[in-house]
């Protein structure tokens, strides 16, 4: 198969970038999207050019490293997969493929198609955990957990932190990412204890980082490679309101806002 690629090239964070066209030919339909880009890079190296930088690591759809906004869709045209699981058979022979980095103020471009997603780390650091130390915890079966709750918690916890939700959102909002973590922990009795504090701190941090506001277009859910539901956003909103209206306001939360 042959393709025309239009790829965003940008030397570094400060440089001005632009779309550049490339041609690749003789690509097997069984090759993955990244194997196709590997071939392009091999060509560029051989001809003395500068290979295209893109983030990738596990190449099996779980690490969340890969990104790429392909033809107007994060992770490309196939629903429920990451870019690394995308295969060229999902494209037409001779097609022009536009490849851009994630675009969000909170995700600045580092180079070419690579963006800095450390804003996600910061949100997790604001409270996306259960505050337990490595010792002194009770036996794992001490607290039974309703199976349906545990399953819903897993559904939310399946997030791979790739940022497709932010990339797809017309407002570059991170509500699905944060809603998923808040829901995962709030659904379990172990995480319930500090749920109110957690949701307030994580939302405050999210606001500071420059993500947009949710306008419920649900593009995030449509593009999430792990199919995480917007029900998690509603659950976070609910938890947030409850915390705002009913919980004692801890000093540290006030300080963080």
């Amino acid at each position, binding site marked *: 198969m042959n393709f025309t690629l*239009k790829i*965003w090239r940008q030397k570094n964070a400060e440089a001005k970038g632009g*779309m550049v066209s490339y041609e690749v030919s003789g690509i097997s339909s069984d090759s993955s999207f990244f194997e196709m880009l590997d071939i392009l890079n091999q060509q560029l190296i051989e001809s003395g050019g500068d290979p295209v930088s893109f983030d990738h690591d596990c190449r099996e759809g779980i690490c969340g490293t890969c990104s790429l*906004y392909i*033809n*107007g*869709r*994060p992770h490309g045209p196939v*629903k429920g997969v990451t870019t690394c699981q995308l295969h060229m058979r999902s494209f037409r022979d001779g097609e022009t493929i*536009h490849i*851009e980095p994630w*675009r*969000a*103020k*909170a995700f600045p471009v580092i180079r070419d198609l690579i963006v800095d997603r450390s804003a996600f780390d910061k949100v997790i650091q604001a409270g996306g955990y259960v505050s337990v130390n490595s010792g002194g915890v009770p036996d794992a079966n001490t607290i039974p957990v309703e199976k349906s709750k545990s399953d819903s918690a897993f559904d939310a916890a399946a997030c791979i932190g790739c940022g497709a939700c932010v990339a*797809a959102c*017309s*407002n*570059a*909002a991170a509500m699905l990412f944060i809603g998923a973590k808040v829901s995962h922990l709030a659904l379990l009795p172990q995480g319930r204890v500090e749920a109110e504090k957690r949701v307030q701190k994580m*939302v*405050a941090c*999210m*606001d500071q980082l*420059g*993500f*947009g*506001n*949710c*306008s*419920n*277009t*649900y*593009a995030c859910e*449509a*593009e999430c490679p792990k199919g995480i539901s*917007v*029900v998690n*956003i*509603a*659950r*976070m*909103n*609910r*938890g*947030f*309101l409850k915390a*705002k209206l009913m919980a004692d306001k801890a000093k540290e939360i006030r300080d963080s*806002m």
Partner: protein
Amino acid sequence: MLMYSSITRKVLMALAGLFLVTFLLVHLGINLLLLKSDGGAAFTEAATFMATNPIIKVFEIVLFAGFLLHIFFGMLVSGQNRAARATRYECANASDTSFFSKYMFHTGIIVLIFLLLHFIDFYFIKTGLVAPPPGIERHDFYHRALLLFSSPWYSLIYIAGFVSLGIHLNHAIQSAFQTLGWNHSHYMGTVKLASTIYSVCIAAGYSLVPVYLLLIK
């Protein structure tokens, strides 16, 4: 209010929006009285009640506050949303999302412009800010409405305004439920259906008056 968190802002906007939604129904009820062939007696009676009752007077202030709050937060949130993506994509977004949800800001602006026109035509005349057209008394909404709807152009603008409002509402109502955290797999389908039915009823109900007056009378 600028310091409110993103969720708080959205919640206030949703609550104000839901409040406006209930108002639309009351207003529609009065409008439909125009269709009654009694020379405007019922309509005028209702309009007079609305204009003079002291409880409604208080309610009117709340209503204005609701409008202002909803519009203020709508503008603020949209501004922030644009800023959150400083560099736009080269390729338009092709994600599989509902048509209605994408144009909330645009339909909101159209409705706002329409609202201003509507104020000039009715509310400002009532309050004396704008002079009434010759031959029509300042509180005579019935003849004022008949006069306006006798113009096909005005009627068309009016209908366009309410179609935009319908589009806005279709997403807005179920979106407000989501924002308030009332999204549950058992009920969300019903909420979405109700929100579509409501928005169609509002758009059709309001449009019925000019259509009836132009075509049938």
